[in-house]
């Protein structure tokens, strides 16, 4: 397998326009390097990926609505990034670990985390979205870029234990300027760690366009660390899947880290509290609607004679069921007794915290008694 990393010329060619296998119009185009990594994919498998994206989008929009309706405290929508997240997630083996940021909703959905438990985080009744060891997913990170070091550390550990699992670090365009991300790439490079840096360049870090973070394409950062990089159309699930499979293959076969820049677009606000009209034009948002990650798969399948009508209907049925479950779960969440806030700070009971727990309980009891 040839990998375009060895020369600057190749990088420059590759980066001028993101690599693409499926155009916005739904036309399958050839790509010298990526094609072989999706050669096994038949139409039904592509349809399954489409169904995944529908599911993820429905989940995301439902959570967004629930937040606007006051049922959740906050939600960072992934709308527009379904191909980037689903395509990369489907390139992983179950034993591979993922370390992502707060917007990475697809992998937890696809790996079947307990939604009711997860949503507690977004209703602020818990910090624990899932059991990391049950799903091989580190808890989504809020500190920008911090998780990239955890992904590299995991990969170093896996390499040390020779257990054949790899890791993927998800982060955004804004994170690429954090020191931790550069440090993560240094460690990954010098230890040849089996890790994939998956950067979703969705155009904005809250309000700041990517041009504030870099004067060059982000994928070019990786060459400074001698890490091979791919820049793909992040709204093209085939290209994302192929590039991530390639990168995971490199990691698993001892070739070390890779960097993928998936060029996509955050269709929604940063979070439910954000107002994008203050920093970007509606025309720009409209122009990305035509590049929708789901639409192009529909168009392609249609052109191949696939029954898209049926696919759409089936996917919607699945997605609606998930949304219903999500809504019921979110509304039902009640805070646990506040005394639990003292739990799990340390691995065993801690004298100072236990004293404060006792003081808190006494205070609460006295207050209740006085009130009754």
């Amino acid at each position: 397998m040839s990998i375009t990393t060895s020369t600057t010329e190749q990088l420059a060619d590759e980066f001028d326009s993101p690599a693409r296998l499926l155009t916005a119009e739904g036309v399958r185009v050839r790509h010298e390097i990526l094609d072989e990594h999706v050669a096994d994919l038949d139409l039904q498998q592509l349809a399954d990926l489409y169904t995944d994206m529908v599911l993820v989008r429905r989940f995301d929009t439902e959570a967004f609505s629930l937040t606007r309706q006051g049922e959740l405290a906050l939600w960072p929508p992934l709308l527009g990034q379904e191909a980037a997240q689903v395509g990369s997630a489907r390139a992983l083996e179950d034993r591979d670990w993922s370390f992502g940021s707060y917007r990475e909703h697809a992998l937890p959905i696809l790996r079947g985390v307990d939604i009711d438990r997860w949503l507690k985080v977004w209703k602020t009744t818990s910090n624990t979205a899932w059991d990391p060891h049950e799903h091989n997913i580190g808890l989504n990170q809020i500190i920008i870029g911090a998780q990239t070091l955890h992904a590299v550390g995991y990969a170093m550990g896996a390499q040390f234990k020779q257990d054949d699992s790899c890791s993927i670090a998800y982060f955004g365009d804004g994170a690429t300027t954090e020191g931790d991300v550069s440090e993560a790439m240094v460690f990954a490079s010098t230890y040849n760690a089996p890790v994939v840096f998956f950067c979703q360049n969705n155009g904005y870090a809250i309000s700041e366009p990517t041009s504030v973070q870099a004067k060059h394409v982000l994928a070019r950062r990786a060459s400074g660390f001698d890490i091979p990089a791919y820049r793909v159309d992040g709204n093209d699930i085939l290209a994302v899947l192929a590039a991530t499979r390639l990168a995971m293959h490199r990691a698993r076969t001892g070739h070390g880290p890779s960097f993928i820049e998936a060029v996509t677009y955050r269709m929604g606000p940063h979070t439910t509290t954000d107002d994008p009209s203050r920093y970007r034009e509606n025309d720009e948002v409209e122009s990305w609607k035509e590049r929708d990650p789901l639409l192009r798969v529909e168009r392609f399948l249609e052109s191949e004679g696939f029954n898209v009508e049926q696919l759409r209907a089936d996917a919607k049925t699945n997605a609606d069921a998930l949304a219903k479950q999500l809504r019921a779960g979110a509304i039902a969440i009640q805070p646990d007794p506040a005394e639990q806030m003292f739990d799990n700070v340390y691995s065993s009971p801690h004298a100072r915290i236990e004293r404060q727990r006792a003081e808190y309980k006494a205070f609460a009891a006295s207050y209740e008694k006085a009130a009754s």
Partner: protein
Amino acid sequence: MSAAQTETMAMGKAINAALADSLEEDPSIILSGEDIGQLGGVFRVTDGLQDRFGKDRVLDSPLAESAIVGTAVGMTYAGLRPVVEIQFDGFIYPAFDQIVAQVAKLQYRTGGLHRMPITIRVPFGGHIGSVEHHSESPEAYFAHTAGLRVVTASSSQEAYSTLRAAIKSDDPVLFFEPKAKYWSKGEVDRTVVRDLETAAVLQSGRDVTLATYGPTVELAMGAAAAAADEGIEIEVIDLRSISPLDVDTVAASVRRTGRLVVAHESQAECGIGSELITSICETAFTSLEAAPERVTGYDIPYPPAAWEGEFLPGVDRLLDAVDRTLGRKNSRDFMRGGAAA
């Protein structure tokens, strides 16, 4: 088990032995830090460990403190128990975010579903006559952070046994090593087991309680010996654990002595002394016969080392504070215009 044998070791050697015995005992332990491999560390504390345990267990890391700690966090997900070294106290701040926002909080964030068995070794303190950033005592920053354990040691034995306990703990532990004591020799019995939260009464006395930790313990013992010549009995407590503080042991002592002096190299403001004195006021106020006193570094940046002897607590400043609690003539008498009567 055969009778315990003791060996004479400098503190640096005792730490080396604790690391070696841990590496020997548990294959999931891995060491990472700047210059700890080939060189054996800038203080030679890790000397020989890479030769003995291999380059994949004793990593000469790139120069990036945040990454040294951050990758250690990732290693715990792979089932490893990393022991990392921050080369000097004043170099720890680039790792502050990973320590405070990740290492300290991950057990809480995961509701106890993931443990954080990371030990962060930090040479700290002054008395080595070095340049800026090489003599600081940043322990209070970390004691202020829930989820971390912060410990130190005052002798070879304490260093060996406490580091062994730190590495065995499922909690993250910052182990502050008094670098000025690296070459001080003491007896080490490798079978001695320590916990990570109790203080030790090193010397009993009925007049004043003097509580301190790390590099200042030896000075406190010196002060106690000097005071004894004047018929004053100082009870010396080695706090050992900075977080949590063993308030019970100090309070029990203060109930006997009625007087408390707390000493450390780091500054006074929001320091360990502030916390301990407040805790004693809360728990043993009626036993106090005098206001508790602090002897600390002054509230200035660590000064040029030519002045560190004046900046750091010394035996005379400890005794001066003892005199204050006893109402004896002391340096403060010189603050109110003119010499004392």
